[in-house]
């Protein structure tokens, strides 16, 4: 573990707005090892999604940069597959065809037709969606569609899997179910994962490491917490586990004591404004 797998150095992100540049991120340094499951947590508007988009190559850092396996990241690519919050499946393609689009694009040259077919089916089986291969995204539930989104990302054999609040839009039961599936898959494939979340329990349960981000503007890494819990993890058993409770406590205290959001009207509005920024769009100037 001499050299890190993924490295962000001195990343700053400034968005141009009508009232001058808005600094969303400043001095973000992050080193991630191969096979690590890292969660990014923080209040909305703290630039979590911006970090993820920079790693994905969908956004370019204004200063500093991101290096993956010794190569600088400056454009998107399938080796950094993204799972989007709202599955982002093509609604006109079936579940199978959605995964096929990715597999054909990435393995066009390296796999035969039959190999690709097997690989698509394998990934659908991995997320328990092989039974719905011929359904369209509109015909399956949100949780199922999110599974397919994960299968599509996994099928690209990414060296880093980027997940942007993958379970944020799901109900609690479906979310718990998908979290368990994700843990199983992670156990099996040992992918490097960066996941954005708002959910403290989700972060502690799934992660090897939780990166807590300070509030924006000019957000940066606040605390870096290693979760030393044995795998496989069981959510019911862990609920009483002293270490689990302590980790959870640490994250909560960071979010609600150290980085508590000031609930005055102006900052609440600014929180909303910079929440738009997390979508990668231009931001209105935030009042100080």
């Amino acid at each position: 573990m001499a050299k890190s797998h993924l490295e962000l150095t001195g990343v700053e992100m400034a968005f141009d707005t009508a009232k001058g540049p808005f600094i969303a991120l400043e001095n973000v340094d992050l080193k991630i090892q191969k096979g690590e499951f890292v969660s990014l947590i923080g209040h909305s508007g703290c630039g979590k999604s911006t970090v993820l988009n920079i790693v994905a190559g969908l956004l370019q850092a204004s200063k500093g940069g991101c290096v993956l396996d010794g190569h600088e990241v400056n454009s998107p690519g399938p080796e950094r597959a993204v799972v989007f919050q709202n599955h982002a499946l093509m609604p006109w393609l079936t579940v199978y065809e959605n995964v096929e689009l990715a597999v054909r694009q990435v393995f066009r040259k390296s796999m035969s037709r039959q190999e690709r077919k097997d690989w698509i089916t394998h990934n659908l089986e991995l997320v328990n969606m092989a039974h719905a291969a011929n359904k369209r995204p509109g015909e399956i539930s949100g949780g199922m569609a999110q599974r397919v989104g994960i299968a599509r990302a996994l099928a690209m054999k990414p060296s880093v899997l980027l997940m942007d609040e993958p379970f944020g839009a799901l109900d609690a039961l479906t979310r718990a179910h998908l979290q368990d599936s994700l843990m199983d898959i992670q156990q099996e494939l040992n992918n490097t994962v960066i996941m954005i979340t708002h959910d403290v329990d989700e972060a502690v349960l799934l992660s090897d490491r939780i990166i807590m981000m300070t509030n924006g503007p000019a957000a940066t890494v606040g605390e870096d917490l290693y979760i030393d819990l044995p795998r496989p993890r069981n959510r019911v058993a862990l609920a009483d586990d002293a270490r689990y409770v302590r980790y959870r406590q640490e994250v909560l205290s960071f979010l609600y004591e150290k980085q508590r959001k000031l609930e005055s009207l102006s900052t609440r509005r600014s929180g909303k404004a910079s929440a738009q920024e997390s979508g990668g769009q231009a931001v209105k100037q935030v009042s100080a």
Partner: protein
Amino acid sequence: MTTLSVRIGESMAGSTRKLLASLSPPQLASAGKQALLPLIGILLFLGFWHLAAPQVQTSLGAFPGPAQVWEQAGQLWQEHANQRQRADKFVLMQEERNARILADNPDAEVRIRSYPGAPTFIDQIGTSLVTVLAGFALATLIAVPLGILFGLNPYFQAAVNPLIQIFKPVSPLAWLPLVTMVVSATYVSDDPMFQKSFLTSMITVTLCSLWPTLINTSVGVAAVNPDLLNVSKVLKLSFWTHVRKVVLPSSVPMIFTGLRVSLGIAWMVLIAAEMLAQSPGLGKFVWDEFQNGSSQSLSRIMAAVLAIGFIGFLLDRVMLLIQKKVAWNE
């Protein structure tokens, strides 16, 4: 005639009453919505027409009621059947004559002439349909690729938008003289593949009907879900794959909405263009009947009006069917 229609009206009212009695309220509601209410609407319209038409006196006699128009519609069909018979006979005789000439002298040059009779109402419908479909197809071939280009490139869009806004509301009647002159000047050929009148009507139809498709396509292309665009970027799809696999399917519903509006406009424009340009088709039929000014002319024009409306309706239905086959959100 009046007593007959009154009797028909009575028997219809009777059967309607029986039908109403046999249905329970919820059934009645759904059946009524689907079939009964439109039927009642049509019957009321026919009744009003029947009563109001004789009150309107013109120099060609009273305005025709439904019965006269129905009679003339039958007449038009009969004329077409007769003409067809004569044409078949003409072709047969021509073939026999040519065969005889060839039997006498194998080297003789035989001439094959097409039947010289005037086109009937049904022939005019056929001509109009071919013209409108050709014009619409050309408009689609121009508008969809251009729309995709504009939708993908906001700079292009901004540059061309004022032109679209200016040309969109232009009436076909304003284009027609220009198109006629340009076609006459540029389409010069000893053995023309198309008639000039056909080209003039078709190009006018194209010019007037391409705008809704163009605008809707560019709006649809510009409105592709940003998440899907990001997926395309992550997958590193090439430009063409991106257009074929993401942009085009995503905008198909919008494109079809545009196409349906375009086809409706194309059909309206065509009738006006044919009337003004005297090029073969339904428009010319209407104009000729108007000039003819016989006692049946108004009935025949009214029959044409109904045919035009009905064909327009059918064209839209066909587009709807195609849309349901092609679009993913149907």
